């Protein structure tokens, strides 16, 4: 039977889940159309904070996209057999993550229908040009790899050699997309908070943390739903990866804080001060940033002690904490910290509005929809091959 | 028998849809002729011959746009040697009324124009809002 048709056959639970996601997507679509008609004024964005939740989510999901590396690299370069069954799931997660990231860029634009101008009048000195090329290239690359591997799996034959080459290419590419995304921000003289060479390494560390934690969560969920058992070995190894990445992520964050606060240049200090201290005026983001820090430390505590992380309940909580921590840090803190205070010293507090949240929820739903459908196809192919 | 009815009904529907323009024209007594366009000021010559303008005014305007915005080149030397300012509002609308000229022909031809007018001004229409 056809690969695509496997997605059309499913249990009532499967269809109900897709239906719920479709509702969210539809609501987001209506909302976005409305946003296009009346303008971005219905969002919480402002003159001093023109990028907000959308771009934060974009950066976060480029990270989720890049994190496919944490399973693809050990499996293909180091032949970790434990990942044999989950590598494709990781690749799908990576592809969908980057696709969602591109959608977040799209919805934040004032004239999205002119997006083609980036290619009509290419300006290689702009990082957006490179971002568009690398992101769409990554999605295409992964789509080809996944489709080819899936066909090979169904036919129970070895995939052609060029697939291996593409996979090897996808590894530096994954690092590349997140590096380009960091370069998008870290070369701007107007934004001292981003203007640090540590931004790209920080992005990668937090991305691999969130990505591997998310993958562990998905695997635990699939096991709970009796859809797929990744095996204890795979989850254990993935957990170790998440642990190391989390350690590096926290380390990088502290290093950044040290140089900023010990150096004490006001224009650099005030951004972090705004995030964690509210610049003595109080800001809506402050509790969230502390929550993010607390969650990261809690996750660290569980993950770093082997006796704790083997307990499924605790592992679940730790991975969820790590994921949410990075999501707050990158999805909000990064963007808001960059803009507050503005180059003119003004503070315009930013609170995302309902339409913004609806659009974000819709893109999340779209991501979940794609992952569900693609995982369904993969798992059906495997079931068929086994029987 | 039921199948026959469906088939004949389908054929009738097809015919009806196909003849929609004819029926519509018959019911509404549609005039075939294109709208008779008038100029607001007579006597002055256009920047290019009428035949050319009729088919290619959009191309000329697009070229003007590029020249003015991208190259700061605002002088247009017409075919007859006259010099014009490359400006939709100041030059074109000096003789052509947007509503009486542009809009009518665009509406008739069903050419949903580029969104020129969402930024460029029509002085005649916007009198209430125009500065003295």
């Amino acid at each position: 039977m056809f690969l695509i048709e496997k997605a059309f056959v499913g249990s009532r639970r499967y269809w109900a889940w897709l239906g719920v996601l479709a509702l969210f997507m539809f609501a987001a679509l209506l909302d976005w159309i409305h946003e296009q008609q009346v303008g971005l004024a219905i969002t919480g964005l402002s003159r001093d904070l023109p990028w907000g939740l959308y771009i934060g989510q974009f950066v976060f999901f480029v990270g989720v996209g890049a994190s496919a590396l944490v399973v693809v690299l050990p499996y293909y370069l180091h032949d970790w057999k434990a990942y044999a069954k989950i590598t494709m799931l990781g690749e799908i997660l990576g592809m969908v993550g980057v696709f969602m990231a591109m959608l977040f860029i799209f919805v934040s634009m004032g004239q999205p229908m002119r997006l083609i101008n980036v290619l009509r009048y290419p300006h290689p000195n702009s990082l957006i040009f490179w971002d568009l090329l690398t992101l769409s290239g990554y999605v295409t690359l992964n789509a080809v790899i996944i489709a080819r591997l899936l066909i090979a799996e169904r036919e129970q034959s070895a995939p052609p050699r060029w697939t291996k080459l593409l996979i090897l290419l996808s590894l530096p590419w994954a690092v590349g997309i997140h590096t380009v995304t960091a370069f998008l921000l870290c070369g701007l003289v107007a934004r001292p908070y981003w203007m640090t060479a540590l931004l790209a390494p920080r992005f990668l560390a937090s991305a691999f943390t969130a990505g591997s934690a998310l993958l562990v969560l998905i695997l635990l969920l699939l096991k709970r739903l009796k859809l797929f058992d990744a095996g204890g070995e795979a989850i254990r190894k993935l957990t170790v990866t998440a642990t190391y990445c989390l350690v590096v992520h926290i380390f990088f964050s502290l290093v950044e804080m040290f140089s900023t606060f010990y150096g004490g240049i006001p224009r650099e200090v005030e951004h972090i001060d705004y995030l964690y201290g509210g610049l003595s005026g109080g800001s809506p983001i402050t509790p969230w940033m502390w929550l993010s820090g607390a969650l990261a430390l809690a996750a660290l505590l569980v993950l770093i002690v082997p006796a704790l992380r083997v307990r499924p309940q605790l592992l679940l909580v730790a991975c969820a904490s790590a994921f949410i921590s990075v999501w707050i840090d990158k999805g909000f803190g990064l963007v808001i910290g960059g803009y507050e205070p503005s180059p003119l010293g003004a503070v315009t507090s930013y609170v995302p509005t309902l339409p913004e949240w609806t659009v974000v929820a819709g893109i999340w739903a779209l991501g979940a929809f794609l992952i569900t459908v693609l995982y369904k196809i993969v798992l059906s192919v495997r079931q068929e091959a086994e029987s | 028998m039921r199948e026959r009815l469906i088939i004949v009904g389908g054929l009738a529907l097809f015919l009806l849809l196909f003849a929609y323009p004819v029926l519509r024209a018959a019911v509404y007594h549609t005039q075939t002729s294109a709208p008779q366009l008038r100029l607001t000021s007579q006597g002055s010559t256009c920047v290019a011959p009428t035949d050319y303008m009729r088919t290619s005014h959009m191309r000329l305007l697009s070229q003007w746009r590029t020249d003015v915005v991208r190259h700061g080149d605002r002088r247009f030397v017409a075919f007859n040697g006259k010099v014009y300012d490359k400006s939709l509002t100041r030059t074109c609308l000096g003789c052509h009324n947007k509503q009486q000229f542009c809009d009518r022909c665009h509406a008739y031809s069903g050419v949903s124009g580029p969104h020129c007018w969402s930024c460029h001004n029509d002085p005649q229409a916007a009198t209430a809002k125009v500065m003295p």
Partner: protein
Amino acid sequence: MKITRKEFLELSGLSILGAGALRAVHAVKAAESAHANSLPSDSPKKQMALAIDLRKCRRRPGCNLCSQACHATHNVPHIADPRHEVKWIWNEGFASVFPLEQNGYTRRNYNGSPLPVLCNHCEKPPCVEVCPTGATWKRSEDGVVMMDWHRCIGCKYCITACPYGARSFNFSEPREALQQVNPDFPTRSLGVVEKCNFCAERLAKGEAPACVEACPEKAIVFGDVLDASSDVSKALDASYSIRRKPELGTGPNVFYFL
């Protein structure tokens, strides 16, 4: 009844066959020239600049005639919500504009007196560097940082890159926020960025920028800063001037006399 040869070539359908190839060539050319434009080493023929004498501004507390004139000339929408404001030239507090010139012991810090700020038409504009489409570029003939609102995709990267807050985004329909429209200048559409254009449309006619003309104190001087005999050069020779955030290396072309 004859179109000149040049126009015929430009305007007629000769580009049909080569359209694809031409597009590619243009794209490469545009990319090259934009890159060249962004380099400070590229010596422009002219560099338009503005010098604002704040000593004269202080004679008229609360004055914003330059801003009024500019915004009326360029159909800049009046939006009450400060989060969605569109501004080309406006007054700012001294501490915001010159944060490093405050020493903490200044008794007269000039806060409260008019201090007009606008796009600095930098020598090395960060906004031009980041624009993915070339909708913003630095004109090589006179150094004006221009915008093409037909091409802007509304990504707001330039707003993020500008260290002077000189750029505004059209969050809502701009025409609805206009009481009066100057028919000689277009309005903007929803979702594009805009900023001061140094009155490029007036310079083309040989006129000075609207803000320069509107100032009753003649506090604003305009001209080619590379030309030693221009008004602006003479003014810069006469007094010590400062620029906003020179440490960023953008090379602003708006000068202030304190």
